[in-house]
């Protein structure tokens, strides 16, 4: 391990680290533009020049490997002059339009010029002009401002896996562009806005809407898929102005998906801001909370407890789920369901519904089998990790399911589930490769579990996991082994709901039975907590209470609407696919008379004469821990012991299907986002537009 001195401080670093990284470890700041810790090294901005003894010219610290006995100075007159010179050159063609630039206030070039630049430029010729490019509905370009750091190109090539961006021409004529003005087709494209060190790439929906210093930032969690990416919600007043990623190397690294980044405008439209009751005229009438609760109490009076069912949706926080579960137990119903998509997952054992390898663990895998899943749409950040692993180690990826372009080579075996049986029996050509892998992993998508034979597929997958090295011990008490069995949940609430047991007990009805019982009049009332993804036609004849934040599919058929809060408007606990318990904070107030969801259920319980035993958020959270002690540990993954699951029976020879038709519209928020509608039209070409009701 090389030892070197930087600014008279000695440091020993790992082999292969650069001078810049060594300086970072010492807390010495070196200004950079092209260097980004998650991207390959380009070394073209020259901003990170430092002085190295025995070298007569400054060196680019981002590209120079730290080696034994180096003596580096970062604060000498030579370095100061070099930095000033580099900045003067960078600013030659950079417009002085900071006052009208969206990056102003959070611009690397602005900050670094303030700190290291000179006060005047000696350049008195015309600046070059570069035509702006059309990068699609999400990214606004102002190419005059580009300083050619090539971060966006490297991001597209390396992280997103869509080599669509490039630098054409050279020298002063160099321009960043797509091939013939093509829209960027990545689910992660918005991250280019973050990594652009200047205002060349900015957010189109956010353009000219606000200044960074006017916004207040709240840490939160992505609820639009199951990954639970760390996000930051920026609000001004009550309005969410933008959503940015927070760094979390265990989950999303520095990135977030375009859906969570840009769908926030959906929070403004079609909101439920006051309670509604459907009158005799079959129209919804706005009423007070008292009246809405009164109507529910009046209706439920005549209905026996077990004639009622509850279904929770995809973006519900654990607090609301536990409140509803407790309420349903008090009412005397065991018909509770969180699998509104009809997935055949059970709530036990825990390893049967988690992403056991963990997202960071994907980097350790040496074989990846995808079953009935399209990770690019179901969890773009899991897909980015698989790609990262592919780039680092050449991870071979094999897929059984519908074919998708994932951004790395995939050996597509077909979409017939019977292929899995052949793999299990060792009768498939892929088996040799599988036998030779030390850390294989499989990802079971919802496309494989949303089937009639979902439990048999789980059984088959468990047998495969045990036969090959997917799971390396069957002794449940051993936790420190490789567990390559993964289920990719597509929703933010699912793992939390399963952890809390929001799933019918032996006597309870699941989704299918609830639907059937409604037509047979055995279920007379249904409580939908943010559940919009079910076939509402089948529910219609029951008394429907809809609690949620958008006037979407559920509200359209509801008899009583209780306006809840969206994820940005309440403190909430979410469990991600790995089983990581994460907290989102409240960034803004809910609109109108809408309330936090657990409070609504708590208030309703009182009206029904079944007072829930908690009054504060702390008490609800204590109740979460009481039901499942896992909720006590935030931001860590507690590995689930390996146990038996699944049910042995025949697999149907029906091909696996994709579960997401349109990446940009999967929930009640994104369905009402104008930006997402534009993406569906322009990026997906309009053919796959979501079947939005009404």
């Amino acid at each position, binding site marked *: 391990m090389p030892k070197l001195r930087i600014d008279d401080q000695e440091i020993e670093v790992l082999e292969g680290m650069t001078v810049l990284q060594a300086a970072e470890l010492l807390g010495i700041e070196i200004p950079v533009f092209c260097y980004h810790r998650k991207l390959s090294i380009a070394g073209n901005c020259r901003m990170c020049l430092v002085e190295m003894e025995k070298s007569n010219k400054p060196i680019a610290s981002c590209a120079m490997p730290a080696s034994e006995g180096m003596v580096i100075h970062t604060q000498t007159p030579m370095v100061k002059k070099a930095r000033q010179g580099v900045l003067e050159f960078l600013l030659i063609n950079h417009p002085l339009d900071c006052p009208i630039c969206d990056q102003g206030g959070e611009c690397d070039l602005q900050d670094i010029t303030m700190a290291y630049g000179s006060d005047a430029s000696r350049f008195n010729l015309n600046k070059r002009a570069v035509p702006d490019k059309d990068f699609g509905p999400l990214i606004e370009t102002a190419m005059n401002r580009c300083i050619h750091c090539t971060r966006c190109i490297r991001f597209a*090539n390396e992280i997103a896996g869509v*080599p*669509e*961006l*490039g*630098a*054409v*021409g*050279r020298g002063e004529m160099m321009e960043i562009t*797509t*091939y*013939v003005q093509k829209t960027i087709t990545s689910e992660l494209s918005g991250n280019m806005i973050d990594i652009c060190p200047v205002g060349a790439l900015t957010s189109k929906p956010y353009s000219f809407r606000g200044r960074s210093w006017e916004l207040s930032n709240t840490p939160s969690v992505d609820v639009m898929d199951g990954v639970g990416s760390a996000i930051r919600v920026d609000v001004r007043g009550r309005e969410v102005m933008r959503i940015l990623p927070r760094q979390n190397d265990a989950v999303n690294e520095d990135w977030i998906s375009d859906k969570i980044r840009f769908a926030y405008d959906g929070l403004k439209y079609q909101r439920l801001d006051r309670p509604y009751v459907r009158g005799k005229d079959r129209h919804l009438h706005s009423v007070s909370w008292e009246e809405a609760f009164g109507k529910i109490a009046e209706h439920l009076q005549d209905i026996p407890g077990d004639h009622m069912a509850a279904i929770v949706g995809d973006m519900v926080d654990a607090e609301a789920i536990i409140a509803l579960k407790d309420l349903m137990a008090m009412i005397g119903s065991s018909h509770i369901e969180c699998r509104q998509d009809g997935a055949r997952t059970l709530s036990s054992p825990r390893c049967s519904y988690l992403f056991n390898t963990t997202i960071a663990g994907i980097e350790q895998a040496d074989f990846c089998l995808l079953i009935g899943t399209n990770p690019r749409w179901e969890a773009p950040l899991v897909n980015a990790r698989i790609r990262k692993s592919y780039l680092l180690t050449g991870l071979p990826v094999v897929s059984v399911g519908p074919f998708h372009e994932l951004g790395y080579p995939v050996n597509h075996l077909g979409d017939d589930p019977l292929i899995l049986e052949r793999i299990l029996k060792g009768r498939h050509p892929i088996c040799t490769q599988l036998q030779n892998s030390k850390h294989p992993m499989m990802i079971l998508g919802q496309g494989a579990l949303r089937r009639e034979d979902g439990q048999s597929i789980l059984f088959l997958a468990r047998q495969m996991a045990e036969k090959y090295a997917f799971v390396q011990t069957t002794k449940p008490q051993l936790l420190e082994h490789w567990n390559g069995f993964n289920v990719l949940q597509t929703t933010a609430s699912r793992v939390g709901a399963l952890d809390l047991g929001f799933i019918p007990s032996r006597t309870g009805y699941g989704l299918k039975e609830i639907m059937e019982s409604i037509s047979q009049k055995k279920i007379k009332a249904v409580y939908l907590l943010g559940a919009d993804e079910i076939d509402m036609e089948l529910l219609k004849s029951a008394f429907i209470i809809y609690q949620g934040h958008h006037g979407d599919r559920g509200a359209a058929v509801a008899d009583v609407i209780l306006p809840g809060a969206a994820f940005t408007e309440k403190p909430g606990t979410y469990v991600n696919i790995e089983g990581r318990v994460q907290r989102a904070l409240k960034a803004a107030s809910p609109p109108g008379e809408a309330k936090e969801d657990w409070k609504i259920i708590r208030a309703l319980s009182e009206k029904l004469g079944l007072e829930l035993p908690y009054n504060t958020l702390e008490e609800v959270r204590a109740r979460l821990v009481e039901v499942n002690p896992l909720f006590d540990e935030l931001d860590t993954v507690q590995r689930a012991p390996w146990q038996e699951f699944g049910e042995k029976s025949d697999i149907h020879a029906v091909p696996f299907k994709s579960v997401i038709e349109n990446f940009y519209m999967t929930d009640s928020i994104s369905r009402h986002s104008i930006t997402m509608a534009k993406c569906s039209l322009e990026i997906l070409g309009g053919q796959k537009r979501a079947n939005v009701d009404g």
Partner: protein
Amino acid sequence: MKKVPIQKREPIRLTSQEDFKTFSFSMENEKKVKEILRRYPEERQASAILPLLDLAQRQCGGWLPKSAIEAVTEMLAIPLMRGYEVATFYSLFNLNPIGKYHVQICGTTPCMLRGSEDLKKACENHLRIRCGETTKDGIFTLSEVECIGACVNAPAVQINDDYYEDLNEESFLNIIVDIEEGRETKQGSAIGRQGSAPLKRDEHVKK
């Protein structure tokens, strides 16, 4: 480029993107492609991009239509954008249709000091086009290029694959007229210098 026998100046129709809606290497070039690909290791086939683009450009009459870049990148299994970057980076690849003779006047310092600007002016006046333009009959395209590596014999001009060195206005225009009238031209030094051998003390002054 294979030496084209110089013919009398007859108008030539310039090709356009429309003429190259699809591109594939000719039978003859297909053999060369195989030979070129053999020069690079199996997993480094992408390195063949420069010779292949060059071959494609020669086949297309001195310029690279989009379809040719697409065909080459597809052949090498590299992203289209990478091929486009390479083609735009090198000024030796022409992305727009070009005349039969590409007259490239070196304008970098040594040639400039030795009178390349006069050569340029003389040529522009003679052909009645400006740098970057093509004559109406499609015979000549004139451009100023950066250093072509013949500084010892500056000023130098490259016409297609041939170098003409130690030029002055007169000798340069003679070459252009020779081409126009279909005569053989003399490549290399216009003053009979052997290679880049030094001249006698006052010889270059006399010139």
